[in-house]
């Protein structure tokens, strides 16, 4: 238990001044601008937007600067800021099939309609430190093809789905007017309870810590789970967000955001109701967050164990374990609260230990030692 303490205002104030000075670093070195962070540390900004659960590059860049590059702290800052803003409503669901593709690959289908588009990727680099970046310089401009990529590229489920070899989402075969139904669960409004629907699980995973999800996904591949996945499709690009304001009565485009989507496909032996087919795990993130989207898709599929009649015996398949520990703001808060003064607590435990020792005969203690 944490008992409030008083005092220390002067020391705290000075500690924050010291932190601000250290954050600035050597004043002879030019100060970082938010535009530099947003433009040149873009993947850090993307991670902070995804886990901070607010798409705003400038705010995320500010959070990265304020947190001295500590991305988990930056996520916390962005989450705190969002509580100061009103919620206008929910968007129409984004259409990732209509994404303006900047990257799109499949490890399962070589000849995917629309082709494999590598886009800006670290894949196939040699991971050798590039010392030319230590000197300032202008990179070679990107190559331009004569023809742009196709405006519409089918998603992987659309490629195999017609043969029934891959599961379709329930609504894919029906009218896709899901907004007319009740809105999806929102864990920023209702505390999470178990069992959670897949909508809430995906929201939780989208906000979840990349490192935690990565480790869980890895565990499922190494044997603590039962996934046999293929990266059916990974696509990254820009989608338009539409919102229907009350005063208009129709949806309008409010902006364009970059998202990364991952469709993992997993073998499934079938059950008494369902024939053998591929099942899917789904990952979706703001920005270019491919590792996160892939981990999310693996964990999403693992959490469907119960629904698909698989034995759920591993951590990654345990919904409560995964969802209750995925949030790095909550986790960081609870771990770091141990730094706060617990003097009263500790004093009482000290007394207890002393009493226990006094009650134990000395001979026993000497034997134990």
């Amino acid at each position: 238990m944490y008992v409030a303490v008083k005092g220390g205002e002067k020391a705290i104030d000075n500690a924050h001044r010291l932190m601000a000075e250290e954050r600035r670093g050597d004043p002879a070195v030019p100060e970082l601008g938010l535009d530099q962070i947003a433009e040149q540390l873009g993947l850090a900004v993307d991670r902070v937007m995804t886990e901070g659960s607010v798409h705003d590059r400038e705010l995320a860049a500010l959070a990265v600067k304020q947190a001295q590059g500590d991305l988990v702290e930056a996520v916390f800052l962005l989450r705190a800021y969002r509580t100061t803003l009103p919620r206008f409503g929910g968007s129409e669901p984004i259409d990732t099939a209509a994404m303006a593709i900047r990257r799109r690959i499949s490890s399962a289908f070589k000849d995917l309609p629309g082709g494999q588009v590598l886009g800006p990727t670290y894949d196939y680099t040699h991971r050798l430190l590039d010392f030319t970046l230590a000197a300032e310089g202008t990179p070679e401009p990107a190559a331009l093809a004569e023809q742009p990529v196709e405006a519409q590229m089918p998603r992987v489920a659309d490629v195999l789905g017609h043969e029934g070899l891959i599961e379709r989402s329930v609504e894919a075969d029906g009218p896709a007017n899901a907004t007319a139904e009740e809105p999806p669960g929102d864990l920023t409004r209702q505390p999470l309870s178990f069992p959670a629907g897949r909508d809430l699980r995906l929201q939780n995973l989208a906000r979840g810590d990349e490192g935690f999800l990565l480790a869980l996904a890895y565990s499922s591949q190494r044997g603590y789970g039962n996934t046999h996945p293929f990266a059916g499709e990974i696509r990254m690009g820009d989608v338009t967000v539409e919102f229907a304001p009350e005063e208009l009565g129709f949806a309008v485009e409010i902006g364009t955001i970059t998202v990364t989507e991952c469709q993992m496909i997993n073998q499934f032996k079938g059950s008494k109701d369902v024939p053998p087919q591929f099942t899917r795990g789904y990952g979706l993130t703001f920005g270019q967050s491919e590792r996160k989207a892939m981990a999310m898709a693996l964990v999403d599929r693992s959490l469907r164990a119960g629904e698909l009649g698989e034995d759920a015996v591993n951590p990654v398949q345990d919904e409560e374990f995964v969802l209750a520990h995925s949030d790095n703001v909550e986790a960081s808060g609870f771990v770091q609260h141990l730094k706060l003064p617990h003097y009263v607590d500790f004093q009482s435990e000290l007394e207890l230990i002393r009493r226990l020792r006094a009650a134990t005969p000395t001979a026993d203690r000497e034997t134990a030692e």
Partner: protein
Amino acid sequence: MPAFATEDRRRWMGVLAKAAPDEIATVWSSLAPTPDYALLRRPETGLVMVRGRIGGDGAPFNLGEMTVTRCSVRLAGGLVGHAWVAGRRTDHAERAAVLDALMQAPARRPAVEAAIAHLDSLQAARSDRAAREAAATRVDFFTMVRGEN
């Protein structure tokens, strides 16, 4: 009965929202005469929850929020304009709302329509460049077969 189709308004509001703030500022400074308007709803920044679909094609779920600024204005003649714009730029939202109202005014529409067509072409050019940069990275993977010559 308004003198424009809902689909038209949807389109121009989308172009105005997706324009860069400095592009909107350029259009704004070219307006003559400067429109006379009152704020019905001052520019206000808030959040819209962005929804995705489970599996890309299933039921909706909440991905995360985005910042959005909205504004509503009324021209001296009584026409009302609205704007909903991603981000926190209040000047962008206010100007887009005025431009939305001007698009409904037959006398002002041609000039504003030309400006919006220009904004649209700038956006199309950016998209085309990105799509051609991506296309330059298209690859064919060959499946290697062992033992073949």
